[in-house]
């Protein structure tokens, strides 16, 4: 009876003292200093001695996010194949290891750890939801490894171990607001899913509106789980008489939202909706007939008329099928692999510290146009594009920022945003 208890206690005390011994030498038990994480980082096991180098793709291939994240993995695969066909990076072929994040943050953390510690990859590309990124962040900082994250997000983050190749708020949401103001819209209704991105975005939108004399007529959230009932919300939207709707809904909720929107007789002419989570991939799901004429805010559309994009779209269709479309996150993922390649070649090294030191100013003629890494915050300068959904299901540019916008994840250059972060 007592045998096990004794064994348990013995074992626990035994390992407790082991830890104390290590703690004396190491930077353990420091709980409040921010430097603690970097001090104890594990040794990198990346092997660059052979004629190939490993990289990891970590996307959800199962679960609710699979439908979106699979497309990102496809464009990443295409980029890796292109790079390998053109001679690799620093003369080394890329050996890709693919993992499934299963749409669960904890799985993303586990698989990131596996890619870094077990497979010894030089960099990891992937993640979609903010929760998946937040879950991976401590893993990459703890191991001092690199993540390239390809999706627009809510900003207010900047890790030296993450490169953000999607837009932050001042490259997507703020230009959309400026555009609406320019169009003479004086009041907005905010609709979003009930989670961090819409909440943070709407906080910023309200701060911006207070500064720019835009009236916020209402703010409504629906749970992320699908099956939300929009009839009440749409009635509120209709009765508000707002000039436009700012839509931060995610996923399936958009289907019911736009159907109901059309049912009550609202349209892009009477009250336009600006969406920040609907790209080419989602248009078919929501239904083109429900979306025609509505606005979107991104940094890339399939219809962009640049030589790099024509090649990107043609290659993608040739590889994955004529009926496929390309979208902003896919393009940002494709771009992220090239930005990593260009940084490695500039640094002439695969080491994390060398990449961090050489990242500033690295650019790439991407399908969306020229993009450049900002070495301070690890985001990239991108051109903002307001688009309109057309009958053919594609999105055409209505307005674009005159030049690539410098990333400002903490909105520190906007006085009205003080106190938001």
């Amino acid at each position: 009876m007592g045998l096990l208890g004794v064994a348990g206690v013995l074992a626990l005390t035994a390992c407790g003292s082991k830890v104390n011994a290590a703690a004396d030498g190491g930077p353990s038990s420091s709980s409040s200093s921010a430097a603690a994480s970097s001090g104890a980082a594990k040794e990198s096991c990346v092997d660059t001695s052979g004629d190939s180098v490993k990289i990891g793709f970590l996307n959800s291939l199962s679960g609710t996010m699979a439908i979106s994240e699979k497309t990102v993995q496809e464009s990443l695969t295409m980029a890796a194949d292109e790079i390998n066909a053109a001679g690799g990076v620093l003369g080394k072929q890329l050996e890709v290891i693919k993992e499934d994040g299963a749409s669960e943050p904890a799985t993303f953390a586990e698989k990131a750890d596996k890619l870094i510690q077990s497979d010894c990859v030089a960099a990891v590309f992937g993640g979609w939801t903010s929760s998946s990124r937040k879950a991976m962040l401590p893993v990459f900082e703890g191991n001092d490894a690199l993540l390239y994250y390809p999706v627009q997000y809510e900003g207010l983050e900047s890790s030296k171990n993450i490169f953000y190749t999607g837009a932050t708020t001042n490259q997507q949401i703020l230009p959309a607001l400026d555009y609406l103001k320019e169009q003479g819209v004086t009041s907005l209704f905010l609709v979003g899913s009930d989670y961090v991105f819409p909440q943070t975005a709407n906080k910023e939108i309200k701060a911006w509106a207070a500064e720019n004399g835009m009236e916020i007529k209402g703010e409504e959230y629906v749970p992320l789980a699908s099956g939300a009932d929009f009839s009440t919300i749409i009635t509120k939207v209709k009765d508000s008489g707002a000039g436009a709707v700012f839509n931060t809904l995610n996923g399936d909720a958009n289907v019911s939202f736009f159907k109901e929107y059309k049912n009550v007789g609202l349209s892009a002419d009477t009250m336009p909706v600006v969406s920040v989570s609907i790209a080419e991939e989602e248009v078919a799901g929501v239904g083109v007939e429900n979306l025609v004429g509505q606005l979107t805010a991104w940094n890339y559309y399939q219809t962009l008329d640049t030589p790099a994009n024509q090649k990107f779209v043609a290659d993608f269709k040739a590889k994955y099928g004529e009926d496929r479309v390309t979208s902003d996150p896919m393009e940002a993922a494709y771009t992220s692999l090239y930005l990593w390649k260009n940084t490695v070649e500039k640094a002439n090294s695969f080491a994390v510290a060398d990449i961090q030191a050489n990242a500033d100013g690295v650019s790439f003629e991407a399908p969306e146009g020229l993009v450049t890494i900002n070495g301070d915050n690890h985001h990239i300068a991108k051109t903002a594009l307001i688009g309109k959904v057309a009958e053919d299901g594609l999105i055409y540019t209505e307005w674009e920022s005159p030049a690539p916008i410098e990333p400002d994840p903490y909105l520190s250059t906007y006085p009205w945003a003080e106190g938001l972060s």
Partner: protein
Amino acid sequence: MKFLTSSRFSAFVPFLLAAVVLFVLAPGILSDFRLNLLARYLCFAIVAVGIGLAWGSGGMLTLGQGVFFGLGAYAMGLHMKLDDAGPGRAPDYMPPTTDWLPGWIEMFRSGPITIAAIVLLPAAVALVLGLATFKRKVRGAYFAILSQALAAAFALLIIVLGSQSGNYTNGTNGLSNFRSFFGYDLNDPVNQRMLFYLAAGFLLVMVFIARQLRNSRYGELLRACQSSEERVRFLGYDPANVKVVAYVIAAAMAGIGGALFVPIVGIITPMDVGVAPSIAMLIGVAIGGRGTLWGPVIGAVGVAWAQSTLSEQFPAFWTYVQGALFIVVIAFLPGGLASLGSVIRNARGWWDDKRGRPAEPPVAVTDDLKTDVGSRV
């Protein structure tokens, strides 16, 4: 030498074996990364021991252990975030302007209160829920549905507490980016190893508690409740009380598993406590053999291990394997993998019978299997 062969000693052989595997073999042969994964599986195994007690012995098909797992996990997570933030300061995921925290958050700043809460919170919730349902003779599928609804509601509650005024739980993003565990740096591999030993130690203690309960008079009563509550009532016992005890202990075990999960995995989100993870916790127990002492442990570790390995080899393929495994076990091996031996023995008996050889006498386990099939919900 009589001691060695006594049944009292042989009952502890599995414990010694498990201790050798966990404390000597595993740390010896596994890399830091794999050892950390095993530590995560052990957390689910701790939950599984509780499910084995409630479901395997008591017949309560609890589809909502994620709630208790989550209560323990969020108690630990909040403590670690508050500890990282430093005295008097709000965790980093809250707005920097936060200068006041409600008492129910603030109390997790204290280590001893957190440790008490990890056990007492799930136990209290299970006590209230158990009394409310079992006293009303709610059981079988109705209890299963109720417990599952609770898991769904709990996950939603965590999200709501993270989104409405205050951001107490960080919503869907969950709690992550922990730096220390009761003062120990989580990035130090030595401390990760310590967490593994901690999980292994707790697991053995939990299995030991389950064993003592199963072999006690109370264990008899619990199994009697599973077979026929009415008869237990005729004998003068209240089956509701008997079941509540097992349910509360299972909840406390789930809370401990959840609390260990957080420093080991480094993140807890509503997705780890809702309906899907609650069912996943159950599948391991079913596959391992819910009626046995070690079956739930082996099942939970085995299923989690298979999930990690298979999803590495064949991404996106795991879900189908899990479903197929569950169906195969329920259809052909209702006693779980732990009953594999006796099933093979029976099959051989049947085979021998067919070929005209004298069959072995029917093994007692067949009866077990029958009750198992009969009581399936």
